[in-house]
């Protein structure tokens, strides 16, 4: 994949990121922050790829911690967002 491809995807994602939350009520600011917080846990994919191809002990240690951190980010992030939103459900 060329650098230009990466940049193309990046620029389009910037526009989508701005567009999709243009109008959001204040009561959802925190759940939305928490939900997007979980989504950057996608860095787990990077941590997995790095852990999978680590050559030295140092790299294995760094990648292992990265996998742990990113998993906490993903799992904790989605669960805590769900806990917040659970309370908004209509009766």
């Amino acid at each position, binding site marked *: *994949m060329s*650098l230009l491809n*990466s940049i193309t*995807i*990046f620029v389009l*994602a*910037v*526009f989508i*990121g*701005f567009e*999709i*939350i243009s*109008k*959001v009520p*204040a*009561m*959802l*600011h*925190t*759940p*939305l*922050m928490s*939900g*997007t*917080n979980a*989504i*950057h*846990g*996608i*860095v787990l*994919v*990077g*941590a997995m*790829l*790095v*852990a*999978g191809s*680590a050559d030295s002990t140092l*790299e294995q240690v760094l*990648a292992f911690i*990265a*996998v*742990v*951190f990113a*998993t*906490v980010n*993903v*799992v*904790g*992030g*989605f*669960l*805590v*967002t769900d*806990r917040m*939103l659970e*309370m*908004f*459900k209509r*009766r």
Partner: protein
Amino acid sequence: MTTPLALSQTAINFTYLVAAVLLIVGIRRLSAPPTARSGNVIAAVGMTIAIVFTFLDGDIDEYWLIAAGMAVGTVVGVASARLVKMTAIPQMVALFNGVGGGAAALVAASEFHRLAPGGGHLAGDDVGAMLFSALIGSVSFAGSLVAFAKLQELLPGRPIVFAAQQVTNAALFAATVACGVLAGATEDGVWMVLLLVGALLFGVLLVLPIGGADMPVVISLLNAFTGLAAASTGFVLENTALIIGGTLVGASGTLLTILMGRAMNRSLANVLFGAFGAAPPGGAAVAASTDGKSYREITAEDAAVMLAYANRVVIVPGYGLAVAQAQHAVRELADLLEKRGVDVKYAIHPVAGRMPGHMNVLLAEANVPYPQLFDMEDINPEFPHTDVALVIGANDVTNPAARSVPESPIYGMPILNVDEAANVVVLKRSMSPGFAGIDNDLYYNAKTAMLFGDAKSSVEKLVAGVKAA
């Protein structure tokens, strides 16, 4: 050694496309109340797809390492998300954000160690993206930990300032970037370590001078940082899922930060560099003027009678309600009043509590009917027709200084005009100032009566009083 199940890169990229669509749909649904919860689930499904299919990437051959890390992370993540108290959720979000940033920095550091043999073999764009992830990820990690410590009250919530702070921070940042440039030029690990250390230190110094009341905005900003750090690792690893997922958060997080600032009528620069709520320059003068003014105390019984015989009551919840976990007692009080024919509404300031939406979450937990909650714009015209405004542990969001005192640090912030109600009853633990550290003239208003004590026990006394009335 690759798994027999290993998929082609094209197939994996296709699953990443599916995951990206689900993430986008998820965020979109998260931004509207009726669909928010399903949006979170959809985003989680997209994430799961990306993770599962990454396992089938032919380049991966250390499964045990990944599986062990994910097991540990899952246990920690589930336990902390389940056990945290509702009032502590802002700092938990900060912590989850911090570890995400840390992960991005570690991914970059590990790739740097693997690929940098020393002596200009790395492609310029790869090394640039690596250094960017390492820098921003570390800033986000350290900054989030400080935000956590402030909200958890391990560090003082007030701004921590020292002489020449901004010059120091700017110099540190410049030195850190210089280490990054040297790391890229020499591919020597020492510079990478210095870059990481400098970035961590900068993250700490960036958040220290910011007051506790601004933490939600700061966490949102660091959230966007972590998104960009994750996207940047996508450039290094040439991975579309990382670029799209990270960038979506970077962009939407930046916009969300601006929206949050706007709800408080603050610019981002003002939040970051304004040292909001610092010991005010006229601190002594403010304290002295407090002495000159008098406030009126009221007993729970008298306040209960006032409420029971009112026609319209507006309840204004704030952080004090959250701390005392008084939401169920408040609901009981409102139900009792409604049974007596009193019209009860809740006034929700967008930044009441310590995170936007904090009050909605708490009141929803107590099953307060959704139609009784009113946003600031909708409730403010009602105050002049309101008999009693019952302020429960809210302070800065009711401070008339925001309308009338241009010198006040909160001047210009939209507030709830509770002082326009015929009577104001304020439930508060003591006369101490609120989170912004400034005095509230509302308490010295002739129509305001103070009911001191823990919000929950005060509300329970009001419930007993209304029953007896």
